[in-house]
């Protein structure tokens, strides 16, 4: 039951525009097309994913056995810091912006993003920002080595390259803010008539809320690193205790940004999974409206839990209790989401194509990360867990089989739409199973390491931690290598696959993007499409 491309009569005179510019620079450097910019973001994030992943391989190789094996301790610290900065700001966030660029206009019936030229600028800032960040590794003073949290006083003890780090963070922030402004302006102003807010696909909803989070917190990070910059180079003492400043204040400011940042990376993942599960369960999403409110609740709560990252600094008991209970509250809307995904699958006519496998993997493994998060929320026991590998295991479960699995699920789900070709289902499934098994070998033992007291961010450790570290490293090497399968599947799909994708691609897919041909025309929805029961993805019937 594939649906043919929607064209209206007054669109015909636009046909001569319906092709991409022929020159390479015109097509990619000066583009204002949301699909091209989406592709640029996705390719860039994949590149960063491999650069950040290479750093993770260095970390796991060093930790394969006790003792110093391969790298100097200071370089190890640079690797942990850069790995995090690149994965957070260079891989996961730009990948979601890429998805937003590709999908939001097509999902709401808009011809493009609302501000196409700013869209181009948002992207092209990033390669310069990350070139600058990575260049610090080749400077005399080396790259940042104080952890991605950049806590003073340690971060202030770095060399001259710190200025480059701060400027890179500023540029990433400007890019994110401009991208978010574009998303909000597009969703609020460019929806096709009839596409009311509560008819929007969940992915659009989660991105709308994510964009507000970004605008609220990225300037806070910018302010914090600006003050670090002046402390380092201009003699101020915002966070320098020797000059009357307060290092703990930096931790408060950083985590006021940092905790919403976690949700910035995971809310779009919730959106993608909410698109995929109904498609392959062949049922409407259970509790659409509840999902929207749960997303908004999580976003609100993310602003009032930041100090659970710093229970050990010695805050008042009332403060610890407030942040502990507020953190635990997040389990309620998150539980609503997991319940609704499971309920959507309940008695559905399920099939298990690669996107669905990754989506189910996400639900199960992200929930493990959520549960260890609840353990960390308990202020009393966090004194034991803090700064151990238990924390590393927790947030990697949230971000790798969480956010990254959702990115892979979304890629497999929409790749046929983007390229017009089907990917290899066999290799997609091999990628899923190798990734899922290896990611658990990689991160699950780290729970035990943390509970046994192994601190994070160290290149050497006591011999009692040797076995679990070796197992974890083996899992890491397999997981890293298995991502080459992902690249192979994508390259094959784009350049070699001969199996054409239909417009609808998946039997159970619903929503505006599936009414367009695969691949969609270079300019789509120049005239807003009709919004009716067959073009709305999964709103509640009452709406």
């Amino acid at each position, binding site marked *: 039951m594939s649906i043919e491309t929607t064209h209206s009569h007054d669109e015909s005179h636009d046909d001569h525009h319906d092709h991409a510019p022929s020159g390479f620079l015109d097509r990619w450097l000066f583009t204002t097309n949301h699909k091209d910019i989406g592709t640029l973001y996705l390719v860039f994030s994949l590149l960063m994913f491999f650069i950040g992943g290479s750093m993770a391989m260095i970390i796991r190789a060093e930790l394969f056995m006790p003792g110093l094996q391969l790298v100097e301790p200071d370089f190890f610290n640079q690797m942990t810091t850069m790995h995090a900065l690149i994965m957070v700001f260079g891989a996961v966030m730009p990948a979601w912006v890429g998805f937003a660029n590709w999908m939001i206009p097509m999902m709401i019936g808009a011809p493009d993003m609302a501000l196409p030229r700013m869209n181009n600028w948002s992207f092209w800032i990033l390669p310069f920002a990350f070139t600058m960040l990575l260049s610090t590794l080749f400077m005399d003073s080396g790259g940042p080595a104080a952890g991605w949290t950049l806590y003073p006083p340690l971060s202030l003890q770095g060399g001259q390259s710190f200025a480059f780090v701060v400027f890179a963070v500023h540029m990433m922030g400007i890019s994110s803010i401009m991208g978010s402004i574009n998303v909000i302006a597009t969703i609020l102003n460019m929806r096709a008539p009839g596409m009311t807010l509560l008819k929007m696909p969940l992915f659009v909803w989660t991105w709308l809320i994510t964009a507000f989070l970004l605008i609220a917190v990225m*300037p*806070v990070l910018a302010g914090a690193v600006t003050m670090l910059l002046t402390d380092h180079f201009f003699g101020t003492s915002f966070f320098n205790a020797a000059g009357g400043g307060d290092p703990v204040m930096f931790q408060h400011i950083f985590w006021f940004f940092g905790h919403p940042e976690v949700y910035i990376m995971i809310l779009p993942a919730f959106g993608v999974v909410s698109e995929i599960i109904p498609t392959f369960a062949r049922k409407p999403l259970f509790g659409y409206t509840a999902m929207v409110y749960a997303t908004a609740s999580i976003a609100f709560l993310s602003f009032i839990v930041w100090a659970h990252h710093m229970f050990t600094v010695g805050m008042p008991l009332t403060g610890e209790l407030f942040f502990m209970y507020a953190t635990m509250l997040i389990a309620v809307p998150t539980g609503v989401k997991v319940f609704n995904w499971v309920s959507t699958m309940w008695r559905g006519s399920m099939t298990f194509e690669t996107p669905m496998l990754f989506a189910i993997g996400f639900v199960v493994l992200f929930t493990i990360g959520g549960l260890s998060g609840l353990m960390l929320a308990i202020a009393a026991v966090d004194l034991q867990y803090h700064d151990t590998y238990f924390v590393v295991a927790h947030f990697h479960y949230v971000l790798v089989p969480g956010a990254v699995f959702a990115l892979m699920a979304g890629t497999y789900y929409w790749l046929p739409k983007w390229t017009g070709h089907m990917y290899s289902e066999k290799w997609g499934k091999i990628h899923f199973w190798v990734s899922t098994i290896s990611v658990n070998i990689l991160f699950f033992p780290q729970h035990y390491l943390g509970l046994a007291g192994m601190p994070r961010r160290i290149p050497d450790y006591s011999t009692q931690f040797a076995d679990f570290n070796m197992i974890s490293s083996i899992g890491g090497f397999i997981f890293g290598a298995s991502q080459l399968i992902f690249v192979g599947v994508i390259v094959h799909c784009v350049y070699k696959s001969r199996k054409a994708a239909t417009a609808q691609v998946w039997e159970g897919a619903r929503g505006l993007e599936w009414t367009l041909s695969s691949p969609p025309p270079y300019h789509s929805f120049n005239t807003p499409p009709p919004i009716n029961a067959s073009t709305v993805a999964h709103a509640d019937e009452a709406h």
Partner: protein
Amino acid sequence: MSLNSREDLANRRSRAVKTAWLLGLIAAGIFVAFVLSGVLGH
């Protein structure tokens, strides 16, 4: 002006630009407020 016309689209683009300026000012305001709170509180 019908809902689906090009004028309507241009109108919505113009509203989008205003939305963008508003959001940009909010972001800039948050940045300035945080830095100022650091300066004045010091």
